[in-house]
């Protein structure tokens, strides 16, 4: 019974997302250079760009799937791996690097047992390494979901992770 409800809820969510994606495709179809804006919106809807979504976009816009895949894999902002509940992005831009972001990244990786571009087994955390988010004045900087944390040292890091682990 419970299983059923979950399935119904999943199906509903799936349909809703698909409807939103179709709206986006409708809005951009026929415009020159439509593919990248559509991918941006699709990633906002799904959180990532799995093969089915790419296929759907290719069909919808009338472009070859190979082109869609080519674009998705070219740009590092697009991802085919789902993000964790908490997405941690440790800036590895120059300003952060010289202020010890490399060490910070190692510590987080050890602590969570994942590497850059991976997601933890319980899907709670994923790890990214952007190059400069433009907050170099606060280096070293990391973001967890939408929150920016700056001027971090190793001790604060432990506390911070603890907060999100619960």
């Amino acid at each position, binding site marked *: 019974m419970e299983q059923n409800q979950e399935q119904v809820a999943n199906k509903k969510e799936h349909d809703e997302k698909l409807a939103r994606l179709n709206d986006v495709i409708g809005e951009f179809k026929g415009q*020159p*250079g*439509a*593919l*990248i*804006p559509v*991918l*941006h919106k699709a990633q906002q809807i799904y959180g990532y760009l799995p093969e089915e979504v790419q296929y759907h976009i290719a069909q919808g816009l009338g472009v070859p799937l190979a*082109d869609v895949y*080519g*674009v998705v894999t*070219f*740009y*590092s*902002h*697009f991802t085919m791996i789902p993000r964790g509940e908490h997405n941690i992005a440790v800036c*590895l*831009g*120059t*300003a*952060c*690097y*010289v*202020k010890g972001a490399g060490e910070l990244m190692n510590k987080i990786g050890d602590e969570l047992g994942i590497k850059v571009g991976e997601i933890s087994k319980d899907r709670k955390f994923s790890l990214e390494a*952007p*190059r*400069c*988010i*433009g*907050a*170099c*004045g*606060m*280096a070293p*900087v990391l973001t967890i979901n939408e*929150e*920016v*944390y*700056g001027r971090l040292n190793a001790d604060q890091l432990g506390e911070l992770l603890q907060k999100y682990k619960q």
Partner: protein
Amino acid sequence: MADSTHILICRGTACLSSESQEIQNELQNQLKNRGIEEQVRVVHTGCFGFCARGPVMVVWPRGTLYCEVRVEDIGEIVERHILGGKVVERLLYRDPKTEINTEKIDDISFFHRQVRIALRNCGLINPDDINEYIARDGYKALGQVLTGHSPEEVVNIIKKSGLRGRGGGGFPTGLKWELTRKSPADLKYVICNADEGDPGAFMDRSILEGDPHSVLEAMAIAGYAIGAQQGFVYVRAEYALVVERLEAAVNQAKEKGFLGKNLFESGFNFDIDLRLGAGAFVCGEETALITSIEGNRGEPRLRPPFPAQKGLWGKPTLINNVETLANIPAIILNGAEWFTGFGTEKSRGTKVFALAGKIGNTGLIEVPMGISLREIIFDIGGGIPEGRQFKAAQTGGPSGGCIPAKLIDISIEYDTLLEAGSMMGSGGLIVMDDRDCMVDIAKFYLEFMCDESCGKCTPCRVGTKRLLEILERITEGRGREEDIGLLRELGHGIKATSLCGLGQSAPNPVLSTLRYFEDEYIAHVRDKVCPAGVCRKLSKVRIIPEECKKCGACAKVCPVGAIKGAPKELHEIDPEKCTKCGACVEKCPFKAITK
């Protein structure tokens, strides 16, 4: 309480990350509770540049600057300053050297050496309100141009001003406008390059967050001058706040009739759309950027034809950097001669730099060209923290090079920097001290370039990989004597044969660190030591017997149990087990362990 009291709160990205939103809310609440919310105006602005001491706040009319303000401080600021007319001493800027507090923003050395043209409104106006921009002569230059100047005249003003591109290349802006103007076509485009790829730089971000209309106005002026009706801003998707503010600004400008049809009744039409980048450094390069807007993998194209001849969708396209554009309205309003009064003969005007790394005042500055590096680092930047030695500064990001301490008096101009083996670049300025290893820095930049190489041409795709491999083995103690020559040969080869500016400049950090710090490379290769103690595989953690007080703290903190010896016995480190993590070095209260 003065009637004209207003409070400016920075809401740039750096300050926002330290709760400037909450601070503003609290301030507004407190003013309301005391019934004075009508008399005191609270304005959120873009970046002041003083990120090192954020969140910052300025209270006018006195111009009092408060640093590192926290939500808990707001009550005191309202009570004491706003109502009582006294200054809250403990929140003032304290000079770390003289330990003297300075109250007024204009008296602080960080600010008073600066000349603000591109940043003229940043930190002064609310970027979300077009009326504040208009009140500071916004869109006046566009009006003047459309009603009183021919397009040729506009091009001539820009040519006379001597403005050169601020995106890295330094190409004369007026000349670029003229070339694009003269290319015959039915359609033309203006593109603003806001891809800001240099990792460690945030000039363009701050301009767009603090004063988006200045760039939109400039694009419309450029459109009129070259004969285009459509503009695009290509902005990094990572810059969420920029995107939000730009979207709002475009809409407001349309509502007011500064964008759209028949501007200022002149018959001239101009529209602007945003395009988001998607995290590829090479898309900052103009031809790759154009390919990306067209909806493809952002691979560069061979030039010529230049974008001025054949750009977006095959049409003549003017592409300028954010900061270049931000200068335009000021030049039109004040005249070319006014602009040539700043800077030097070949480098007119000012340049915005993002100071970061081992420097006291990290943040954003705008200085006249021709200023010395020493003034930037020591007078404005407040010197190197923790009593460390200045070693080198990297300009131009991963395409640039380093300027060593011995050239600290170099004058900051396009040509002097090129001669020194670096470049002006877009404005990232990373300061390094004696604890930074130059080989490691070169490796860092190369890793970046290797990652970002689009793969279209072989010298860049394979060459940067080989360079990186050599650097990796040098930093891991497997370097060979002939590696240094090989780095040079390969570096020059890649520069000469790559398709676009990415590959042509990728070896620069290696070549420039080799030029000034060859002895450091030699130490890595020949003696297998890293003089700065950064390269882990080369460092040897050692206990100095004479200094060791046998307290046992190191053995306790060692995560791998590599330190032998009970308390009261001399300790020893087992080199086989030691991972050189440095935990013991930090822990030792007597500084008896070296790395």
